[in-house]
């Protein structure tokens, strides 16, 4: 466990801490709200660097569709400011506290560092697509600026993308700029009951092939559908958003295009919004401690991956992103069936599986992040060294070194 917590009040102070740590070959764990501490390979750092005082929105002019904030700003504060201006982060970041059982305050820097995107990923892109610019402190304690506050930018190497999803292993984000969009005027969801997982996948694919601009496509088998409160039997969920007249027109189009579409239930905005928030926050699997996998594959492969694993292991799954994002909760507490899960992913065309939740002992014994092909892993390690040569940050969070911990 980490002992000392450092809480710098400025970027410069943070940089000084990092320089001093690098000089004495020390290590730091970066903590936003530390709500996701339980994610990733367990690792030990000498000290914790807290983002708590590097907080606040620095620049936000709604007409420019860009918001800049210090990385320790609570997500809630940002969402409140956006809501006031009728805007939103299009990639719909979720709140994983229910999942991880954490009760800290999720920060915007961690949304970037973890590349957290919700259901609208399929139409509006991921967090990494919304992230326009960053300031960060690298492992040598240098302040680096990359990207900016504009929508289109190909000036130099795109380190912004690299920082997104790096889980605090490449640098300390101190400021992030996100693209924001007008909030949709309204939304509605079509619910089709009773499809098998495989029929659900076909239905979602068919829906995405229409011009209805589906902005959420999820499928919940019966047990999960029940917890989502969308009625009896399995539920295939298709969300449309936009101006009211347009949503109504597209709902008709979508019904006409889908087998069984004519009989589908229609959830109005008041029910649709909370439903997709539950999907975004992975609410059906919250409040449990069973191992939970987050699997990203080609949309049509999701249900096959789940079926292969669930043939041999007890558990349940549901599907977002048109089937391409599988949330798979397993009863197996020994090793979370890691090999079986990854073999299934490989068999179904590849992708990756991240063990988002599992007891620490399990996370010590299996690779939490998807192991990479050797040349890509080597390249990634060279990139990491280019940013953090002394290995100051979150050492080993993304890399599995075998069950060395016991030592």
């Amino acid at each position, binding site marked *: 466990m980490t002992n000392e917590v450092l809480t710098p009040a400025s970027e410069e102070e943070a940089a000084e801490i990092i320089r001093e740590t690098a000089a004495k070959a020390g290590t730091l764990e970066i903590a936003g709200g530390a709500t996701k501490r339980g994610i990733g390979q367990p690792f030990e750092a000498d000290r914790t660097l807290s983002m708590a005082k590097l907080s606040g929105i620095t620049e936000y002019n*709604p007409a420019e569709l860009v918001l800049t904030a210090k990385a320790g700003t609570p997500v809630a504060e940002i969402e409140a400011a956006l809501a006031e201006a009728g805007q939103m982060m299009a990639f719909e970041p979720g709140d994983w506290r229910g999942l991880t059982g954490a009760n800290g305050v999720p920060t915007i820097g961690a949304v970037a560092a973890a590349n957290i995107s919700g259901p609208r990923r399929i139409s509006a892109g991921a967090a990494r697509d919304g992230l326009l610019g960053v300031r960060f402190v690298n492992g040598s304690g240098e302040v680096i600026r990359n990207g900016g506050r504009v929508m289109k930018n190909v000036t130099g190497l795109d380190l912004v993308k690299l920082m997104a999803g790096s889980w605090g292993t490449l640098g300390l984000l101190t400021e992030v700029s996100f693209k924001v969009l007008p909030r949709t005027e309204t939304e509605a969801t079509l619910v089709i009951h009773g499809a098998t997982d495989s029929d659900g996948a076909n239905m979602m694919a068919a829906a995405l092939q229409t011009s209805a601009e589906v902005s959420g496509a999820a499928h919940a088998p019966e047990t999960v559908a029940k917890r989502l409160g969308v009625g009896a039997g399995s539920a295939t969920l298709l969300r449309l958003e936009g101006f009211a007249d347009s949503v109504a027109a597209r709902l008709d189009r979508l019904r006409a295009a889908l087998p069984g579409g004519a009989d589908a239930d229609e959830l109005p905005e008041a029910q649709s919004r909370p439903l997709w928030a539950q999907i975004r926050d992975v609410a059906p699997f919250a409040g449990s401690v069973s191992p939970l996998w987050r699997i990203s594959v080609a949309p049509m492969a999701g249900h096959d991956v789940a079926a292969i694993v669930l043939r041999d292991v007890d558990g349940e799954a549901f599907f977002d992103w048109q089937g391409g994002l599988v949330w798979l909760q397993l009863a197996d507490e020994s090793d979370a069936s890691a090999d079986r899960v990854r073999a299934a992913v490989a068999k179904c065309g590849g992708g990756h599986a991240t063990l988002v939740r599992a007891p620490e002992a399990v996370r010590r014994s299996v690779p939490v992040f998807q192991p990479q092909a050797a040349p890509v892993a080597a390249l990634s390690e060279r990139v990491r060294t280019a940013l953090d040569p002394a290995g100051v940050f979150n050492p080993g969070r993304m890399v599995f070194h075998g069950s060395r911990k016991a030592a």
Partner: protein
Amino acid sequence: MNQIRFLEPRADVVARRDEIRAGLANLVPADCLVTEERELVPFETDAFTAYRRVPLAVVLPETTEQVAAVMKYCSERGVPVIPRGAGTSLSGGAIPQEDAVVVGVSKMARILEVDFENRTARVQAGVTNLRISDEVSADGFFYAPDPSSQLACTIAGNIGMNSGGAHCLKYGVTTNNLLGVKMVLHDGTIIELGGKALDAEGYDLLGLVCGSEGQLGIITEAVVRLIAKPEGARPVLFGFDSSEVAGACVADIIAAGIIPVAIEFMDKEAIDICEAFAHAGYPMDVEALLIVEVEGSDDEMDAMLARIIEIARRHNVKRVKESQSALEAAQIWKGRKSAFGATGRIADYICMDGTVPLGQLSHVLRETTNIIEKFGLRVANVFHAGDGNMHPLILYNVNDPAEAEKAEAAGMEILKLCVDAGGCLTGEHGVGIEKRDLMLHQFSETDLNQQMRVRAAFDPGWMLNPSKVFPLDLAMRKAV
């Protein structure tokens, strides 16, 4: 205007030219290797034609394995490599140098797989941008990024430059529509990044590669996202009495929560040039024109347009003209997309590509005019207004060295203006050689050193496209 430098050719490489050409001949079929001086000429520049360098050889491989063999060979012998697609770069990104081998992907132009259920296409990197949309159009799909050069430019080049287009306001640029690549590293190692899944594992190396201007490896295949075509699309012309009012109207449309598919801007000079060329039916009695495209069913488009027209009226719009047929719509876009070509017929031009925050559009347009007047030049402004990506085309006569120098100087001032307004040097054309020496205006040396260290993680010997993007005299260059 020949002041942009290249790295000194490596004398030892140039001296071994015959040996290297012979070695390459062992690696690829004879029709994949170009060494005849006359045949090398088409490869000496790209669309930034003021600068030319004849390469040592050009290789046009047919397979990833051939690319890998060539890279390994060049790496072992210290020969620089210049990746090339169709050579339509506007920033000199594909211009070679005397000691370099050009590796072009133009013979690798097959569409390998279209997968409508997963909405992806896997293509060889030399396929042209438009080919993909053509291939899937009958099935109701398209590939979204649509650079005006889409008939010629390749997906490889699009990835190299993270290219955009008129419809990127809604659908994003290349990086937002790219799911995976196969690429060859400097030493011949073949790697794959991403695939059909929406998120890649580990560090987002794919995001890093996109827009890296051929400095990290040779891309040989790509997986791109396909999107279902909208029910219909309709461009509408809005004419205004001044550029500033048009700029303010754009800001208000966006602020009202409306994101059309495209908002393109043209000033008087650009309208005149494009209308004369394309007979697009643009109004001639206005100072500025917006092309706003909306999508959906007829009813949806009507509703959306009603909102936009109401905003435009508040800005005293002088002309509103809806296209009445598919033909008219095509004419409107033809006019816009041929803007560069049409300009090229009346004068030489250099095209700037700075991007500014939307709130700064009017200010930057005004200051651009001031800069151009100060130099006694002419400018045509035609650009992607919805995302703040400016394209002032500075007109000059290439045969008048004094004027050429002025044009280049004015361009540099305009780019600095964009950076100072909170923007960047290039939105979609890349740094290349053109903006390389301005990089320190946007970045600190520390910022650039960090980028170069990441670059070196891919290409430790600085062999790939070595004269581009980073100022030549930065110490870091020599350190690696």
